[in-house]
């Protein structure tokens, strides 16, 4: 039998890890001379206390769902895709090209094709590391890191040299035409008397992200391809025995992963900025790692973890606005979550396993 019941593995361990991260974060806040209780209440109020706050929280969560799913799909094939950031940058480029150079008659069409472009660009950016891993054994972690930097250079070049409108100073593309404007939550949910989500960037992409969660769940747990991805992730020799091609699975898993990371761009580039700027991704690609680890690579877990990080992001911004606590606090929290749910997993797990072993011994 397994040492621990399933619920302990799926729920208890992430919760303990999260608690450890929270305690340490509180200590950090105390360490810089601030009051953690006040900070948390400010974060809750700022991120969840109004539809405006929710509008930001869900906007960030949308980004993190995409990048979290991207990391998760690769994880299932035992591939560590650190390249979500670069893939999301390239996704943004795809969205910008689709929105700027095609006169879309309506946002729905634009959304569909911009999504395709984002996914295509993201997948293409993941394709080279995937191919090098599958065919030449180049470590995908290193190549995807390198591709993040290369992506930054590509984006920089495109914005400075190609996409920047004549006479503009900013390294940014022109503003997208009005026709491709995506409905924001404000436009979707406000009634004539009450304005909801006013000024918040959450938009229809949130529902695309929810759909992506469902699709990824179906893919991983309900399809033959998902079965093969998981089988390959658990045992490469087993996959060879069963006639599952390692090359094919590595390529497909990474292409899906890259496409999901790229899809993030319809939220931040098309939905929010409505033009392509240099630092559009704001590190969301990396937060995907924390989200996937915390969500145990399961789409529902990713959904919850993305909301949590959305809350942290928005709450952190509020903190930076009203107190002396810089926004980097959330980077620390993010680091601690990755540390405890990822690298120090055994530190939480081993004592817990001993505890369960003792409990079972006591019963038996």
């Amino acid at each position, binding site marked *: 039998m397994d040492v621990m019941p399933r619920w302990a593995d799926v729920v208890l361990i992430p919760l303990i890890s999260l608690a450890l991260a929270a305690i340490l974060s509180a200590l950090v806040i105390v360490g810089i001379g601030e009051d953690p209780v006040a900070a948390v209440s400010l974060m809750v109020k700022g991120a969840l206390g109004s539809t405006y706050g929710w509008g930001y929280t869900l906007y960030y969560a949308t980004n993190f769902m995409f990048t979290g799913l991207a990391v998760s799909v690769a994880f299932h094939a035992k591939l560590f895709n650190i390249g979500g950031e670069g893939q999301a940058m390239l996704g943004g480029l795809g969205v910008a090209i689709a929105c700027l150079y095609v006169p879309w008659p309506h946002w729905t069409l634009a959304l569909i094709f911009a999504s395709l472009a984002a996914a295509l660009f993201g997948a293409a950016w993941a394709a080279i590391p995937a191919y090098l891993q599958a065919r030449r054994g180049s470590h995908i972690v290193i190549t995807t890191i390198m591709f993040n930097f290369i992506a930054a250079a590509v984006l920089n070049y495109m914005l400075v040299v190609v996409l920047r409108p004549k006479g503009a100073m900013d390294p940014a593309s022109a503003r997208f035409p009005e026709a491709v404007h995506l409905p924001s939550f404000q436009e979707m949910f406000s009634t004539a008397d009450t304005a909801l989500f006013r000024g918040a960037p959450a938009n229809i992409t949130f529902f695309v992200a929810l759909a992506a969660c469902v699709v990824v769940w179906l893919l991983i747990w309900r399809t033959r391809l998902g079965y093969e991805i998981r089988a390959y992730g658990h045992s490469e020799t087993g996959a060879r025995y069963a006639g599952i091609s390692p090359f094919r699975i590595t390529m497909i898993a990474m292409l899906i992963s890259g496409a999901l990371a790229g899809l993030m761009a319809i939220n931040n580039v098309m939905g929010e900025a409505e033009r392509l700027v240099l630092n559009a991704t704001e590190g969301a690609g990396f937060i995907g790692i924390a989200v996937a680890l915390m969500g145990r690579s399961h789409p529902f877990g990713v959904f919850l973890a993305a909301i949590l990080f959305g809350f942290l992001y928005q709450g952190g911004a509020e903190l930076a606005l009203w107190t002396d606590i810089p926004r980097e606090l959330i980077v620390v929290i993010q680091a601690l979550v990755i*540390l405890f749910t990822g690298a120090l997993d055994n530190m939480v797990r081993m004592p817990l396993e001993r505890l369960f072993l003792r409990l079972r011994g006591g019963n038996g």
Partner: protein
Amino acid sequence: MDFLTIIQILDSTVRLGTPLLLACLAGLFSERAGIFDIGLEGKMLAAAFFSAAVAAVSGSVWLGLAAGIAASLALAALHGLASITFRGNQLISGVAINFLAAGLTVLIAQDWFGQGGRTPSLVGGARFEPITLPFADHVAAVPILGPIYSELLSGHSILVYLAFLAVPATWWMLYRTRFGLRLRAVGENPAAVDTAGVSVVGLRYAAVAICGVLCGIAGAYLATGLQAGFVKDMTAGRGFIALAALIFAKWRPWHAMWACLLFGFLQAIALRYQNIDLGGLVIPVQVMDALPYILTVVILAGFVGKAIPPRAGGEPYVKER
């Protein structure tokens, strides 16, 4: 391009190559012992901040250096705890350490100095001053060799000379001492080391600690030698370029030096020129920025001689019969 320009570019190559070299050798020790380290960046960043902060407060750059090394060592210990003691994923641990450093440095900088995540500018004894080598002024007038000696070789801070001395020292340690033999063995096959009666955990912690010290020096050089103070994210990917150089050098000390000088040279060129005009073909500065990474991918792909990492790299050691 005249001779003096070349000397100046090479001079900044040495300056920019120094932090890369220190970090690269740091990674070499760690990875040769079988511990992958993508947290070089974070360790350097933490060291950069604490060295600058302590130097600013105390006025002593040496105290700053010590603080930088201590900060880097603390993060190295965390990496060791995660990847050696708790047998966690070394890559994930490295990612966490990078973010931890990125966040904490700004947080603490803001708390201590309130200047938006930077330290005050360092002056006087709070910085590593250039050292003028003997007779540098006298021979400056000698054609060719004079400027090479007085401009290129002389006039760097002590950490630069330390970094380049670390190359033969590393080579010697790796290939001529008992420690080096064991270190290389533990990165290739920890079981062989274990059954030979040598502690795998001890060796790996030692390697990670050396890595911490070297990253600490690299960070301190950035903030107190190359520049005069800490600014947010000042490592700017140097930890990853060092990692790239390490792969480029196939985990060998002398090759690491050449790789770091090459990447330092690329940075020096990119700093000096926006776009390079090669007889009609204009190379945009972004290509120079991306070149170290592109070269690394090419090397990793095995098109120019395959880079094979230490065999036990990345795998936690579990005793097996």
